[in-house]
C-alpha cells in the first residue's frame, strides 16, 4: 500500500496520553489536516511522523517500509515549524540551500535550485537578503521553500499560519493548497482552525484528547459528524438531548421529531443527542403548523448585515438559527415562535 501508514501509534508524557492507538492511512499525493483543539495530540502525532519524537508503541510505515526507528535526518520529510525556525545566521538563500549543502550539492546547482524554489513560492529575488529583513508572510514562504528544497516524500506543517494576521492567513491558505496541487506532494498540516482545514484539505483528521475522532473529507465531516465532539468542534452546532422513540423518530423536549437515519445500536428508549447546523434551523411565526417543530422563544437577534443570527430558547436549551438577510425571520426579542428542524438535517449521535 503506497503512502504513509500509522499502526497503533501511541505516545505518553508521564500519565498523559498525548496520542493513543492511532491507526491512520495517508495515501500518496493528498492534503491532510490534523484538526483539533490545543492539547489534543495533533502536533505530537506530526512530530512522530517527522521522526522528532519516538512513539512508545506502534509502527510508522512509508510504502510498507517500517520507518519507526529511522532518525529524522534520514527520513527526507520537509517540515515547516510553528516558529518557522529559519536559521538567523544565514541569508534567505543559505536557509533554503541548507539541506542541499548538507548533501554536498555543488554551489551552482544550489543557487539554481534556490531560485526555482523562490519562484515556486512566488518570492523571487530575495536570496541575498537576511531573514530579519523579511515580513511575516515572506518568512512563511521561505520556510516552505526550505522544506521543499530536497523534494521531500512528505510535506509536514505545524500550524505554520497561526502567526499571520487574518487576511494574510486566508490568502496563504489558498496559495498553500495551490502549491501542493502543483507539486503533488503528500502533505500533512496541523491546525486548530477548522476553517483552515476546510479550505485546504482533501481529508480532515479530527483529534480529541489524543484519539482520532473522525477521518473524512471536510464536507462529510461537517454534514455527518461521528460524535458530539466533532459536531461541536467543526463549525457551530445545536446539540439537543433526545430519546429514541421508534424507528425514524426521536423525542426532543417532549416533541416527537422525524429523523433521516439513526445510528446503529440505538434502540427505542436509548438516550441520544441530535445535532442541527444553525443554517438548517428555520424560525417560523407561531401560528404555522407542520412536522418537526419545537416551540421556542427568541432571546436575542444579532443582525450583522451579511447574516442574521437568531438565538432561541427551546425548553431551556439554546438553539441558534442563521439566515441570510433575505430570509430574515420577522421576529423580535421575546417573541414566541416555532423552530423547524428539517428531518434531513438532523444528525442523531449516541449520547
Amino acid at each position, binding site marked *: 500500500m503506497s503512502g504513509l501508514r500509522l499502526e497503533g501509534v501511541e505516545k505518553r508524557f508521564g500519565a498523559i496520553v498525548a496520542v493513543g492507538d492511532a491507526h491512520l492511512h495517508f495515501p500518496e499525493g493528498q492534503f491532510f489536516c490534523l484538526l483539533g483543539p490545543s492539547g489534543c495530540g495533533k502536533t505530537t502525532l506530526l512530530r512522530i511522523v*517527522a*521522526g*522528532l519524537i519516538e512513539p512508545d508503541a506502534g509502527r510508522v510505515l512509508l510504502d510498507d517500509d517500517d520507518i519507526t526507528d529511522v*532518525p*529524522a*535526518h*534520514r*527520513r*527526507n*520529510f*520537509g*517540515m515547516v*515549524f*510553528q*516558529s518557522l*525556525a*529559519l*536559521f*538567523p*545566521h544565514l541569508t534567505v538563500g543559505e536557509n533554503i540551500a*541548507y*539541506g542541499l549543502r*548538507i*548533501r554536498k550539492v555543488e554551489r551552482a546547482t544550489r543557487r539554481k535550485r534556490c531560485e526555482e524554489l523562490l519562484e515556486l513560492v512566488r518570492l523571487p529575488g530575495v536570496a541575498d537578503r537576511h531573514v530579519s529583513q523579511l515580513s511575516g508572510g515572506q518568512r512563511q514562504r521561505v520556510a516552505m521553500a*526550505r*522544506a521543499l*528544497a*530536497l523534494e521531500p516524500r512528505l510535506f*509536514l506543517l505545524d500550524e505554520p499560519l497561526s502567526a499571520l494576521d487574518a487576511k494574510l492567513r486566508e490568502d496563504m491558505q489558498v496559495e498553500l493548497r495551490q502549491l501542493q496541487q502543483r507539486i503533488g506532494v503528500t502533505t500533512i498540516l496541523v491546525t486548530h482552525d477548522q476553517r483552515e482545514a476546510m479550505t485546504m484539505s482533501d481529508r480532515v483528521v479530527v483529534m480529541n484528547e489524543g484519539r482520532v475522532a473522525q477521518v473524512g473529507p471536510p464536507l462529510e465531516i461537517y454534514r455527518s459528524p461521528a460524535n458530539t465532539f466533532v459536531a461541536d468542534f467543526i463549525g457551530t452546532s445545536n446539540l439537543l438531548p433526545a430519546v429514541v422513540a421508534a424507528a425514524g423518530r426521536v423525542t426532543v423536549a417532549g416533541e416527537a421529531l422525524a429523523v433521516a437515519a439513526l445510528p446503529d445500536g440505538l434502540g427505542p428508549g436509548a438516550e441520544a443527542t441530535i445535532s442541527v447546523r444553525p443554517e438548517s434551523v428555520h424560525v417560523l411565526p407561531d401560528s404555522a403548523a407542520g412536522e418537526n417543530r419545537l416551540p421556542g422563544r427568541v432571546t436575542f437577534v444579532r443582525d450583522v448585515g451579511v447574516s442574521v443570527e437568531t438565538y432561541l430558547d427551546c425548553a431551556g436549551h439554546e438553539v441558534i438559527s442563521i439566515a441570510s438577510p433575505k430570509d430574515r425571520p420577522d421576529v423580535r426579542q421575546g417573541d414566541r415562535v416555532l423552530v423547524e428542524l428539517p428531518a434531513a438535517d438532523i444528525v442523531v449521535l449516541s449520547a
Partner: protein
Amino acid sequence: MRAPRASRAARYAPAVYPTIMLGLFFVVPFAIMLAVSFAHRVPGGFYEPGFELANYARFVSSFFLGTLGFSLFVAGLTAVICILVGFPVTYFITRMPRRRQVVWMVFLLSVLSLSEVIIGFTWSILLSRTAGLSNLLVWLDLMDKPVSWAPGFAALMCGMCYLGFPYTVLVLFPALSRLDPELPEAARTLGASPLRTFFTVIMPIYRNAIVATVIMIFVFSLGVYLLPQVLGRPQHWTLSVLITDQAIFQSNLPFAAAMAVFLMMVSLALVGVTLLLGRAERRAA
C-alpha cells in the same frame, strides 16, 4: 523646546548614585594607580610624587615582555579550553529536564564558592606524587610507579580552567536556554545529523555569545596571581604574580602600578581588536 531646569535635574537624578559609586570606587583608584605609575620610587622607602617614565622603561625589557607574552598566552589558552569544554556542556545542560538543570547549576555555583587558594592547593595535592591521581593509576595497574605532575604547565592549566569553567557555563547558560528548540529540529529534518546540527546551526548562532565569553574568561584569567605560584614553576609565573611581588614584597608600588597599567592597556587593545574583527566579518557576511 528646552525642558525646565528642575525637571531636567530630576531626569538625571537616577544616574547620580551609580555615577558617584563608579567614580569613587573605580575612576579614583584607577587615577591614583595611573599617577603612582609615574611616581618616583624612594629605594628602601615608599615613593614620592613625580613624573618619570623610568617604571615603564624598566618594563620594556626582555624578561618582563616575555612574562607579558606568557601571561597573555596562558589567559588565551584558558579561555579557549573553557569555551571548547563549556559550550557543549552548557548546551547539554540546557536540553535537560528542568530539575536536572537545577542540580547542575547548584553544583557549578558551589564550585564558585571555592577560593583560588583552595583550588590551587587541591590541584597540587591531586597531581602530587605522594597522594595524587597517579597513585590511583598505579593501583589500577595503568602505571608502574606514582609520578609528580605538579608544579608544571599542565597543572597550571588544570587549575586555570577549573577556575574559569563555572563562569563560562554561567555566562552561556541564559543565552543557550533561550534557543528555540525548533531550530535544531529544523536542521534535523533537513538531513543534518545531531553533530552537524551542532556545528552548522547552534555554534554559528551563538558566535557573539562565544566571543563575549572568551573575552571575559581571558580578562578574568589575566588577573589570577595565586595559581601560577601554587601550580607553576617560576618560569610559569604570570605578570599578575610579578605585580603582586613588586607591590607587596619589593615595596615598589610605582613599578607594580606601571605593570598593571600596561597589562590593562594590552588586554584592552586585544579585546578591541577582537571586537573590530568580529564586526568587520559580520559586515562582510
